[in-house]
């Protein structure tokens, strides 16, 4: 899909705005009271990051991630939540960029989404280990990882369909 510079800018702006809305909506979904583990969320904003990387490019995707992380922290978060967010987001972005470069033919956005949400959990858990100076937090991964398969599948399927809509309309 080749887009004119104006369409690229518009699509990038749209994705950034949508990522912020998604991050806000997620704070309203009480997923943590159903699954009582710190940091469990659907990861809806990752839909936007994935679409950014796959339809606009790796650099644009990174810009989106940074804009989303910084703005979310300022609007709805705390300095602590920013650190967790950037560790999870950063690690999952590394995979996202590599998958775009090397695995686009072998894997759909569903697989990419599952892997990036698992890595997001791993990144956040490692951040907790570093912040508290105790590797005991790795225990959370035994629930966070299987949950990431479910949340990753949901957001991945959403990304596939939104990507198709974007291809038709842009």
């Amino acid at each position: 899909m080749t887009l004119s510079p104006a369409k690229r800018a518009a699509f990038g702006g749209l994705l950034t705005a949508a990522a912020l809305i998604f991050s806000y909506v997620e704070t309203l979904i009480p997923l943590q009271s159903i699954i009582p583990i710190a940091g469990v969320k659907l990861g809806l904003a990752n839909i936007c990051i994935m679409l950014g990387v796959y339809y606009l490019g790796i650099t644009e995707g990174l810009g989106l991630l940074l804009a989303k992380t910084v703005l979310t922290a300022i609007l709805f978060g705390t300095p602590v939540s920013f650190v967790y967010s950037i560790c999870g987001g950063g690690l999952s972005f590394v995979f996202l960029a590599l998958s775009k470069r090397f695995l686009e033919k072998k894997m759909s956005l569903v697989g990419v989404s599952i892997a990036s949400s698992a890595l997001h959990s791993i990144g956040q858990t490692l951040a907790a280990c570093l912040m508290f100076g105790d590797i005991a937090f790795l225990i959370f991964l035994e629930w966070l990882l299987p949950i990431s398969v479910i949340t990753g599948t949901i957001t991945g399927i959403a990304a596939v369909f939104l990507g198709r809509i974007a291809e038709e309309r842009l």
Partner: protein
Amino acid sequence: MKIMKKGDMAVIFIVLILTAGLFGFRLFGRIAGECVLISVDGSESTYRLSEDRSVLLESEDGKCTVVIEDGKVFVKHSDCPEKSCMNMGKISKKGEVIACAPLKIYVKITGNGGGGYDAVAG
């Protein structure tokens, strides 16, 4: 309409294998703990799991009440906005953790006191 590709299955497989590994690893170490380690902003104190008590913790960002009761530990109240520490329920097995990230507090079950128990009053 086919969405999934082979690579997707590989990802799911790898994540589930990792999960199984973590569960398996714990299955063998899943023994009842003896002590409770409470860390508030880096300063640690240890209590016996067998002695019922309530500990009021104060960090820069708020207060939190940890209760040891019937060999189990839970967070009874916390000033943090998320309350996920309260939702985590009761823990009693070695290696289990309850964390309250906003208050920089965490509670961990340990196998032993690691050289004597602190007599820190709660």
